[in-house]
């Protein structure tokens, strides 16, 4: 049974060699995966639009009255009712609603009297700018902090990082925002107050992307760029604190998990330096898991951080939706909600694709 010390020449090498995997038609598998993926995205969209449709068309006691007011004549009332298509069956109304959305038609905002889509195009870039910068800082600081904490598990530095994380996670953002304004704006005067930019700079740079940093930089208006950047520091720092706390915490726990894996011992046995073991071997595996976390963070910041946008008078999508809601501007609320929902789904799809690229186990 056992081989002798003289060495057993194996006769059945070939059998083992044949164990090379033969993937069951990779093209077919990939098509199936994409189809599965696409159908789940489609379902999400149907759910999203159905809910917003119900909120907008079915829930208001009388959407016609909401538009014409209670002193309109019966003729006007009937005309508007017909114009809204409210005489048609619900399903048909929903399909019309869908086709309108597909064309970017969310109706007109009562508050701004502009098409809702135009409003969103104006407000969304402010949120995008804030969320993107906050996420970038959350990633750039949170990941090294999480790794550092994991590598020094139980030591002082780990505790310090944990406390920072706990702080960013549990201190209410509106309180933090107010304190920051009080200290850096009112007290020290180091940073400008609320708003995206000083009023006297308004309208100087031509709006292209709607992201002031980008537009001013492209047009060489560095003074405005600096001003916009200074305005961005505090609100972005608030959101980044939140992002950083979450990302650092997850990185730490993923890293601890990976460092206990057997392949880490292998890497050390090979004679690799501790830096290579952590950043080349363990971190590559952590990154795979972090992609989802970063995507979630970014998406949740893009949803509009109502509190931050309110405190810093940041004209973003969160503020737009909230103000519309208080003014019973249903078209605006629904339009904003649909767009935010699309963003959310879009980012999740993106992070899923990225995950599939980075993790070889997801290739087949």
């Amino acid at each position, binding site marked *: 049974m056992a081989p002798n010390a003289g060495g057993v020449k194996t006769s059945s090498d070939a059998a*083992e060699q044949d164990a090379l995997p033969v993937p069951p038609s990779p093209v077919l598998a990939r098509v199936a995966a994409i189809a599965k993926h696409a159908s789940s995205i489609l379902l999400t969209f149907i759910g999203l639009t159905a809910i917003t449709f119900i909120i907008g068309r079915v829930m208001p006691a009388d959407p016609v009255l909401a538009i014409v007011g209670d002193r309109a004549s019966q003729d006007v009332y009937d005309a508007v009712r017909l114009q809204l298509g409210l005489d048609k069956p619900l399903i048909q109304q929903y399909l019309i609603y869908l086709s309108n959305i597909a064309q970017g038609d969310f109706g007109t905002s009562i508050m701004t009297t502009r098409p809702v889509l135009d409003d969103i195009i104006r407000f969304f870039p402010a949120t995008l700018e804030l969320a993107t910068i906050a996420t970038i800082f959350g990633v750039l600081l949170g990941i090294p902090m999480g790794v550092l904490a994991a590598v020094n598990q139980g030591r002082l530095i780990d505790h310090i990082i944990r406390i920072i994380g706990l702080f960013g996670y549990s201190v209410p953002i509106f309180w933090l925002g107010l304190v920051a304004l009080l200290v850096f704006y009112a007290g020290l005067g180091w940073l400008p107050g609320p708003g995206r930019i000083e009023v006297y700079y308004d309208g100087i740079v031509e709006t292209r992307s709607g992201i002031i940093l980008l537009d001013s930089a492209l047009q060489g208006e560095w003074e405005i760029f600096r001003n916009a950047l200074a305005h961005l520091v505090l609100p972005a720092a608030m959101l980044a604190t939140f992002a950083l706390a979450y990302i650092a915490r997850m990185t730490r726990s993923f890293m601890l998990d990976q460092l206990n894996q*057997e*392949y880490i*011992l292998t890497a*050390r*046995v090979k004679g690799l330096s501790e830096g290579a073991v952590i950043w080349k071997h363990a971190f590559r595996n952590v990154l795979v898991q972090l992609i989802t976390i970063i995507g979630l963070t970014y998406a949740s910041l893009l949803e509009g951080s109502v509190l931050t946008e309110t405190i810093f008078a940041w004209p973003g999508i969160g503020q737009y939706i909230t103000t519309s809601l208080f003014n019973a501007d249903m078209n605006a609320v629904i339009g904003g909600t649909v767009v935010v929902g699309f963003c959310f789904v879009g980012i999740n799809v993106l992070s899923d694709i990225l995950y599939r690229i980075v993790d*070889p186990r997801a290739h087949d």
Partner: protein
Amino acid sequence: MTTPLLSVENLSVSFDTPKGVVEAVRGISFEVGQERLGIVGESGSGKSQTGRAILGLTPGRVSADRIEFDGIDLRNAPARTMRNIRGRRISMIMQDPRYSLNPVMTVGWQIAEAYRVHTNANRREAKQRALEMLVTVRIREPEKVYGLYPHQVSGGMGQRVMIAMMLIPGPDLIIADEPTSALDVTVQLQVLAILDDMVRDRGMGLIFISHDLHLVSSFCDRILVMYGGQIMEVLDTGAMHRAEHPYTKGLLNCLPDLARRQETLPVLERDADWLLSRDGAP
């Protein structure tokens, strides 16, 4: 025995756990030259911790009167010295390639990396050496296998990759920690044969850890029988029948004998008293 490559004297490994101190290895001594030394013992007897303590890779507390490899004191060697020894001079083959290979890197890259750590070779040279090494461990389509990820190779193939990776820098001593326990029986023999050939061809020393006394006795020159972190008995494989220790005898009797009909297998006898005498004599 030839001049020892590695001398270990009074090696102990212990862990502080919430339930108290766990003594995984309790004052063992042995030497290894250019030979095959087997370490057998039941699960938890301290075999793996012995191997890891030599490489300075146990999280436990290590104490020893001597751990000397080729004239180098490994006990308090600086991290840099240890890194130069790991892989390059002493290497270790782990049990299960499903866990011991990095899942997000191709197996070829991992082999090439083991070579590059200890040489100035550039990527292309390292890849060339890795491909040659894959041929040495009898893998037929090295180019193809080089680009596979660990989850795409079978257990036997994974363990050949492991052997290739651990032997590519040309170590003098290799610790094989249950290198075939995770494999199918038929594949076990192929992998053992490969390891066997390579150890012989390169004149390496081998510490072969296993819980299978029969396997070890057919593969090694000498055997340490461990129990409860201590060495119970040292045997020459030619003289297995002269085993004296009841634990060793128990291990030998555990295998069913096909020639003789037995209703029940004997229960392995274990006795805490064996651990009282430090020299391992019963």
